């Protein structure tokens, strides 16, 4: 069954089609939620709120472009909204002076997806959101800054700090992945 049939079934109010649509995309979207949320519980909240929006706004989908992209956009916006609703003022959170942390080139590949997601979820809020938007989703700094209501320079700075933080954490948690430095 293709996406269009699924969507038309959902628009008719069929619970079966709604279930099928959810099952097709929930796992991928939950992985997205885990990247943006602090905890798995927050991620489940984002997924739930996001899918409620998907089903209630389905009639607005124009059948142009990727349906998965449309859902992903809704999920990301829901995550950002949750982040903005309860913004934590943690800019001076002690992660400013991170040492450079060299890691092995294949360090990322040696970790499972769950471990990587756990690692990202530990990032401070500001770093995590910018890292997800720019590094993973591929938004530009200008777009991310507009979505978050921050300066473009702040977005760049947050991304740099996020990278350093991740490298440092990789080195601390998995010492065997640290690159040999002179």
């Amino acid at each position, binding site marked *: 069954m293709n996406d269009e049939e699924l969507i038309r079934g959902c628009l008719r109010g069929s619970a079966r089609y709604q279930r099928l649509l959810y099952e097709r995309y929930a796992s991928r979207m939950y992985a997205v939620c885990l990247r943006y949320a602090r905890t798995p519980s927050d991620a489940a909240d984002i997924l739930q709120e996001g899918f409620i929006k998907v089903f209630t706004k389905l009639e607005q989908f124009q059948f142009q472009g990727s349906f998965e992209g449309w859902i992903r956009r809704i999920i990301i916006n829901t995550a950002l909204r949750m982040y903005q609703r309860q913004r934590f003022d943690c800019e001076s959170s002690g992660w400013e002076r991170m040492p450079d942390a060299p890691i092995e080139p294949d360090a990322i590949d040696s970790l499972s997806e769950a471990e990587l997601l756990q690692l990202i979820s530990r990032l401070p809020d500001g770093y995590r959101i910018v890292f997800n938007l720019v590094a993973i989703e591929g938004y530009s700094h200008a777009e991310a800054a507009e979505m978050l209501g921050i300066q473009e320079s702040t977005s760049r700075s947050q991304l740099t700090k996020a*990278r350093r933080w991740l490298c440092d954490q990789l080195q601390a948690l998995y010492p065997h992945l640290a690159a040999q430095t002179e």
Partner: protein
Amino acid sequence: MERPERIDQDLRRRLQAAEITPPAVVWENVYEAVRRRQRRRIVLWLFVGGLMLGAGSVGLWLSWTERALFLSTEDVTRALAPSKPAPLPIPLDIAPAREPIVASPLKEGEQLSSPSLSSMPTTAPRKSGPGTLVTASVSAEAGLDSAPAPAESGPHSENAAAPMLLPAPVLAELPLPSRQLGLSPPALPIKKPSKHTQKCYKFRDKSKVWMLDAYGGPSWSLPKWHMRDSELDTYAAERRRTETPEGAFHAGVRLSYFVHPNVLLRTGIHYDQWVERFEYTDPNFIRYHITVTQKLINGQWVNMTDTVGVEYGSEYIKTYNRFGLLDIPLHLGIEWRSGPMGLSLNAGGSVNTFFYKRGTILNTDGRPVAFTPSSNGREIYRLRVGGSVSGSVQWFYHLAPRTRVFVEPYFRLILRPITLPTYPIEQRQRLAGLRIGVSQILDKE
């Protein structure tokens, strides 16, 4: 050293297509929420349909009334058609008048002079029912012998020269000679309606009419708290400190029916909304990042807990808590009118159909908690608030006979607490507001 962009690329490659199975409860919640919204939409559509049906019925009834009136007028005209005056044989010594003489209101002190018979045209007698208006055109006959029977009380008559209209009962009271002559009596003093009276709807002519109101305006939320536990005073004080009223408004449409010229039954749909700002700051916010790893030591798996980071700073949360009530009121009103303005007292009850609540408040543990349904927060408020009693005083002014503007202060008391019995603070809610609106009396005549 690893180039920073490398980690981006690696993580993107690994995570963009990652799939993690979500907890099963998520689908159950999604399904329940979607079903609830669908049911709510159906109820809303049914309500809107009912309103439209009601409005349509009123419109149909009004147009039917108008059509019935129109048909009855048409019947009368048709019945009169054959009795239009045929040219009467006019005695040779009487010259025919070219223009009919039409009675007109006399000025003060002026006397009606009897016209000479020779200058008067003839008109055929017409019958009418009681209460109809009669054109009191002067219709003297050329000779009494040849004159038709005098009008007992005439119906409508179209006269080219703007006839003066007199009620049939008035004409019936005329002295016989005048009636036989078809002459108007000495002119009755006609009172010119005052400017104010022209603006008023004549409830004496038709008292049972419908009226449609549309209104909106500012409101004030007046909550009243009662502690179920005296030890929660500090908590209540903290809640008061973190919550600030941000304003409220209301809007609605109301359909009223005059069961008596001074008594109305009112119903419709009314929406009240109030907003509170919740601000919470924890200046000593600390979050510890820890990892728990399992290590094999001496053949046994041991959990090792390491603190990998400490996040410190201030935590600041600001939300706007919104509460909305959609109700169906049923009120009884008593109305007094004087000139173009009037006053009405209204009282009655209303039934809540929908209670919207969204936001965050301080929980009893001192931490912020969401109370929005389906937010995995805390259930604090009832699903619906039930019944309310309310009263209002309306001052209105007629802009036109069927159009009014009004201002109406009102007070509303929700009978039950709006909080759940499990929540330690019982919140009773009262609302006051000022309705500003416009009324249209649904009478096309």
